[in-house]
């Protein structure tokens, strides 16, 4: 999104004027909304450099926006509402050019042998975060081929160098990031690559400045707290799509007819033998996996002080519907077994993989390691670790994203589980039987004291019961009663007379248009990314040349704030110091 004039190729000048003018929507509706707050004014323009002629604004080459995921790439032009195409990684993509065996009618992929070891499903991933035994060159090749396919098939562009903006997981390790950038700079000759983080893009795509982004991804679920367009905290759990697919496999293997079962399936936790192909398990997961509603969501009344959302009414209905209806049998045709079988399983059972993957209520919460927390605990912990003000902002802007958000009912379930925890525990980091006992003791003491006071009759009953009631869920109220810190941005907005959102402290989920589309808005509005890498600098210096984010902090602040209007680094300062932003930290 840096619009440096040097890369203008000039050949597309005439074409791009229309491109810029094309959102004339900005003139119509936007004008209506903004006219009341400020006088007619000229918008600030991203001025590339002092020497560039302003006419360079017209010759803007379109920016290609790529969202990298573990399983797929989304590719499109910045400014579009949706990506033009998605490329999924798979074994078919890794064949040699000219190898058409997959099209032969008698070809059956030999998944059984390919799945030996822990290779099951590995071909369907672009990378793994464990780079120790990862062939980085292969990752680069995969990226290159996928991008080439996407450019040829969906974008229909020639191979002139184009600026690229990448939505790239913010936890991506430097080797993988460096391979990605090498591909983009080396093979596609992009003059600059900007890096955008998915949580921030999602927040932008939801129209909020702060959010709690629950990204139910493939390799892991990442809960990121975004505050004022900055990632402030990030918690991860390996409970993601991969685990769900493996659980589905386990589940289906368990229900296979006796003769097809492996003899030693009892040790199922460690079984590396696969009886079903990855594609089939994934397909069944995508088609049929669903998640039960929270069992107690309808029965418990919302606690006071924690108003539980408008969704609550619906959750009652939701709970009712699957139960009142007679849950039928799901027919699951399986082709990768030999011979093919059709399983008939009750729908209720089909929630098992999802249940085990994301909530795992069989085990006590204490038994989980940090990397495998069930999702509701993960979200809760993430919120708990946030400062109070940030938490109050984030909890009322929960965004679900990622592939597993498609699992029916999962979003609602996580939400309900979270409300349930809050109802039971509030924001108290300490739990356990000892604490419960302590609470009881305190309560008893209080009652005793009350009784004593009442018998003594020194004070009115109202004044004593008040603090008692306050303490019942004392932590929550205490937290809420802390005087909020002054929010400079909010102040400024108030000064400007903009209506500000009062929505905080309540659980609420908002819908985002997705990381790709959010990033598309960011790019379209020419807001500078935190990390914009120049091709020359990258090829000279590599990842090691990047400054730490802290060293360019002041600039970063400006750039990160959406309002900065996309100022590029000045010609003098920026040329030597550049940063990979959060990506450089890992």
């Amino acid at each position: 999104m840096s619009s440096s004039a040097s890369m203008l190729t000039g050949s597309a000048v005439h074409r791009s004027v229309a491109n810029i003018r094309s959102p004339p929507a900005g003139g119509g509706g936007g004008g209506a909304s903004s006219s009341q707050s400020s006088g007619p004014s000229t918008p600030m323009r991203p001025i590339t450099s002092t020497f560039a002629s302003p006419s360079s604004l017209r010759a803007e080459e379109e920016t290609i926006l790529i969202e990298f995921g573990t399983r797929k790439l989304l590719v499109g032009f910045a400014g579009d509402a949706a990506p033009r195409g998605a490329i999924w990684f798979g074994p078919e993509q890794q064949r040699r050019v000219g190898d058409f065996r997959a099209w032969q009618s008698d070809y059956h992929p030999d998944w059984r042998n390919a799945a030996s070891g822990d290779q099951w499903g590995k071909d369907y991933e672009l990378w793994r975060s464990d780079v120790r035994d990862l062939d980085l060159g292969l990752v680069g090749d995969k990226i290159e081929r996928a991008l080439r396919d996407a450019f040829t098939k969906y974008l229909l562009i020639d191979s002139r160098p184009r600026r690229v903006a990448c939505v790239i997981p913010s936890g991506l390790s430097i080797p993988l990031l460096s391979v990605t950038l090498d591909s983009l700079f080396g093979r596609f000759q992009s003059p600059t690559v900007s890096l955008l983080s998915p949580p921030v893009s999602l927040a932008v795509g939801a129209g909020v400045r702060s959010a709690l982004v629950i990204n139910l991804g493939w390799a892991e679920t990442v809960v990121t707290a975004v505050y004022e367009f900055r990632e402030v905290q990030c918690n991860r759990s390996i409970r993601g799509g991969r685990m769900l697919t493996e659980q589905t496999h386990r589940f289906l293997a368990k229900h296979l007819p006796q003769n097809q079962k492996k003899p030693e399936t009892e040790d199922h936790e460690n079984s590396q033998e696969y009886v079903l192909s990855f594609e089939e398990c994934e397909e069944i997961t995508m088609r049929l996996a669903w998640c039960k509603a929270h069992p107690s969501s309808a029965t418990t009344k919302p606690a006071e002080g924690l108003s539980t959302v408008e969704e609550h009414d619906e959750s009652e209905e939701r709970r009712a519907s699957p139960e009142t209806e007679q849950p039928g049998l799901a027919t699951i045709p399986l082709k990768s077994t030999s011979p093919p079988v059709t399983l008939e399983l009750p729908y209720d059972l089909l929630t098992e993989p999802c249940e085990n993957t994301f909530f795992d209520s069989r085990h006590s919460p204490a038994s989980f390691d940090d990397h495998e927390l069930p999702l509701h605990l993960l979200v809760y912990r993430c919120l708990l670790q946030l400062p109070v003000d940030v938490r109050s902002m984030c909890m009322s802007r929960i965004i679900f994203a990622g592939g597993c958000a498609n699992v029916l009912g999962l979003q609602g379930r996580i939400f309900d589980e979270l409300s349930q925890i809050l109802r039971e525990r509030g924001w108290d980091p300490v739990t356990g039987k000892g604490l419960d006992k302590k609470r009881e003791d305190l309560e008893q003491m209080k009652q005793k004291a009350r009784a004593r006071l009442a018998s003594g009759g020194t004070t009115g009953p109202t004044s004593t019961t008040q603090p008692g009631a306050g303490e019942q869920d004392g932590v929550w109220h205490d937290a809420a009663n802390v005087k909020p810190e002054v929010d400079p941005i909010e102040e400024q907005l108030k000064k400007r007379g903009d209506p500000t959102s009062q929505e905080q402290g309540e659980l609420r989920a908002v819908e985002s248009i997705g990381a790709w589309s959010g990033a598309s808005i960011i790019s379209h509005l020419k807001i500078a990314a935190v990390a914009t890498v120049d091709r020359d600098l990258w090829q000279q210096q590599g990842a090691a040349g990047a400054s730490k984010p802290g060293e360019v902090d002041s600039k970063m602040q400006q750039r990160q704030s959406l309002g900065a209007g996309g100022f590029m680094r000045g010609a003098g300062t920026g040329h030597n110091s550049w940063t990979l932003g959060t990506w450089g930290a890992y």
Partner: protein
Amino acid sequence: MAPPFTPYTFIQCPCSDSSTFNRRSPPSTPTTHHFHSDNDDNDDDDDEHPFDPRAPRSNYSLFPLEYLLYCEDCHQIRCPRCVAEEIVTYYCPSCLFEVPSSNLKSEGNRCTRSCFQCPVCIGPLSVTSLESHPDPNLIPAPDNTSAAPHGGPYILICSHCAWSSTEVGIQFDKPNSIHAQLAKLRNGGNPRMTAKERKERRKDLAQSLGSSYSAASGSGYPSHFADELDLDLDLETQFSNLKLFYQSQLANANPGGGASGGSASGSGGAFGDLGFTSPTSLSRILNIYTSTSSQDKKAKSRIGTMREALDRDEGLKIANLDESEAIAKLHAEDHAGTVSTSQLLNQTPQLHLGEPHLHGRSRFASELRPIPYLLRTKRSKRCPICRHIISKPEAKVLTTRFRIRLVAGSYIPSITIRPLSLPNASTPDPSALRPSKPAQFVLTFKNPIFEPVKITLATPALTPGRFPSKVTVLCPQFDIDANTDVWDEALKDGDKRRKKGESMDSATGGNNGGQHQHQPAAGKIWERGRNWVSIVVEVVPASLRKPMPVVLKEDEDLLEIPMFVRIEWETDAMGDEVGAVLGKDRDLPKLKRELAYWCVLGLGRVSDQ
């Protein structure tokens, strides 16, 4: 896994060698160790790292000869990865209509006429009148919209799987411009506002509500309007709402200094307003020239502020987490009612722009949309180094001819492989390789160029991989005569054929005292023709269950030989050569050229016995 195995040859394009192409590894990063850290340029580098055709990476650099092009000026092979492409024509593969590139920007990468693919089986869909009995013999071509003889509502129907758009509740009034009609229809037949209509609608609303209207107070709408709009808040609408919102916020946050405030343009100054006639932009341009530095500083010091979206019109959407309806539907529709992964992949996100939030995908068969055909391109290709065109198709969609096409097959020797069946060999099927049994193959190199070439071959003695087979090239160095004049060929043809027949006889029927001994011998050429030479390669396949029976990966029983081919020839010096390779000697009129690359010979499958 077809039983009759055909030997094959793949060639590795030299561009995948990290040192040759523009893929320099940053020297200072310890993390990019996967590249050759030493960028030495001598040719022995390749010999030090023998090429492994089984390595997963080599799948990305190997190409059949037919896929390769050749740059005449750089004298180098060019693979699809190392050419610069330019687009000649955009066209729809279904109706073969050319699409101007300006349409591509505005209307996307799909055919906007009436060409659709079936969402279930990706077969072509045709427009049929609902009234008439759909006669399979009379299915009109997708673009031949006038062929639908009957009036009344029209549907799209798939002639392959009999899917019809009635299954998703879509009918059309007209038989033509289906794309435009479809854009206004949701699945189930409900109308859907296009972006333009929505904008007009909003404008109307704003006008009807008068000056009291402001975007911030969405409650100002009459309630029935609000409901309607809420229903309409699909991905595309939310996107455009958000975009508007951010634009107005940015405009507010950076009011561009007081200088421009004087102009009374009513447009409100959103980013989309770039009309060069408007006074705002004029004053902006003046501003840029007059007061750059101070302006910049001022603006930079001010941290922009923007609030968040507050209501639907600003793009905020409260998530509806209640998916019980969908769950109930899942229970009702079962496995068969859901879409498969491959169908999903064809339903690209763009198709669902108009739908309510589906998180980018549809789940039920009733949510499938007909897929407009993706446009295709004709591309011309250039050498990335010297920018010469190496392939250029005719611009017309209907012609398949090329104006320029420098295929590698006419510059580098082709290699054909056949098993050598000696008279005393008892194996009935020579293509089945048996472990530890020597097998011989005849490699025929055919020289396509008009100069005699000298070929040097090199193979590792043992093939890489888990099952190393022994490989011996009996004659690793030989010359091939030039591909002489066509007339010569025609005149000599009969002669040659006779000769060839003789040699075939000799190969099969024992030695008849001909020019060859016809026993494969080291250092000897097996056969020689006008512009071809055959040599013999002997392999001893490894046992596939060497230490113990192991699980074979796909193609691991395939015997593939990596072979380094080096071609040297002399040409007339042609003045300004761009990529003149080594051995350039100015004194000689002849110029020595060299081309070297790895290739992979697939000889056959080793039987598992």
